[in-house]
């Protein structure tokens, strides 16, 4: 009886160690919002899933399109507020959803419209993870990758991630630009 348990423990530790040696951040359903003519700014949205055992912070983003910052929308009653944030915390084994009305990567000062069918190269930097490079499709305004939904887990509401986002002290970290 103890033998298989030990084996399972060793196997688990081995898996965790192996996991820690490479990127533990999975990116789901990334998209950039198309822009109306003349609009200077857009935003990129995605699901950031931390498969590791350590919390990770997104500390910066760089895109091929233009200057990019981490921002967050917040509703205060019926009032919409947008503020830059220094980091986005992704809890161990948890997710953060970048979505309209919440966290987003803000693309500032576009030189021209982003049109559906185009794509944007995005580089994400984390505090304790290797950087990630993504090619993100531009989707029409009002369309999200959840419809039509094939990656079922990605479309689920995530109350835990929401809760952690709200309690995250994000404004006073050192950050890099």
């Amino acid at each position, binding site marked *: 009886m103890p033998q298989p348990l030990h084996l399972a423990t060793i196997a688990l530790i081995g898996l965790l160690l192996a996991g820690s040696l490479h990127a533990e951040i999975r990116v789901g359903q990334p998209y950039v*919002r198309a*822009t*109306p*003519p*003349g*609009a*200077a*700014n*857009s*935003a990129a949205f995605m699901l950031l899933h931390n498969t590791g055992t350590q919390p990770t912070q997104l500390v910066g983003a760089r895109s091929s399109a233009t*200057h990019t*910052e981490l*921002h967050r*929308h917040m*509703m*205060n009653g*019926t*009032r*919409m*507020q*947008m*503020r*830059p944030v220094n980091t986005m915390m992704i809890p161990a084994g948890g997710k953060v959803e970048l979505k*309209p*009305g919440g966290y*987003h990567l*803000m*693309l*500032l*000062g576009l030189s021209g419209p982003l049109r559906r069918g185009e794509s944007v190269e995005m580089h994400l930097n984390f505090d304790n993870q290797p950087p990630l490079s993504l090619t993100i499709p531009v989707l029409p*305004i*009002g369309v999200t990758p959840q419809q039509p939904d094939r990656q079922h887990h990605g479309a689920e509401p995530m109350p835990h991630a929401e809760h952690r986002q709200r309690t995250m002290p994000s404004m006073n970290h050192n950050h890099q630009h």
Partner: protein
Amino acid sequence: MPKRIPPIRHPRILVVMLLVTIVAVSFLLWKNRPTPSSAPFSNLGGDFTLHSLQGAVSLHDFQDKAVVLMFGYTACPDICPGELATVAAALRQLPAAAQRQIQVLFISVDPARDTLQLLADYVQYFNPRFIGLRGEKAQIDTLVRQYGAFYRFVALPDSALGYAVDHTARLYLIDKQGQLRATAPHNTAPAQLADQLRALL
């Protein structure tokens, strides 16, 4: 004489009470009559004049139309475009005749960055009939107060955006008489908004 008074007085009191009751019930029925004159907005809304690329635009220009009014700014990366896309999608769910009876007005709360040309290009991307409006700060201040809305500039020294504009993110639904009838959150589903628009016509 004293003997006759009681039988006479009693019916009088009863008649008075009956009349008072009738008046009170009538008043309550009248007050709660089933008309859509949404009391919460009776002191909000009203006429205004701002500028579009085509010239001066007043609410009373649209007396034969229902009006959807919203506040926003073109530097807004997702809420404002999302809101405009929602209204455009809701309109597409209505018959063409109904669509022609609804005017959408997008009012900039960022006159320093939103030129008339930019506003026109921006809103017409969503629907060629949408109108973008701009005014001087004093005019916008008055209008925002008039509609019970809110906006303010917030300096963002650490952002290339320079400043953000916090603002009310809801839709103001105005009937053909120019009366504010309802508001809807910015993220109302298009089908639900289409129902609200039908109710305005």
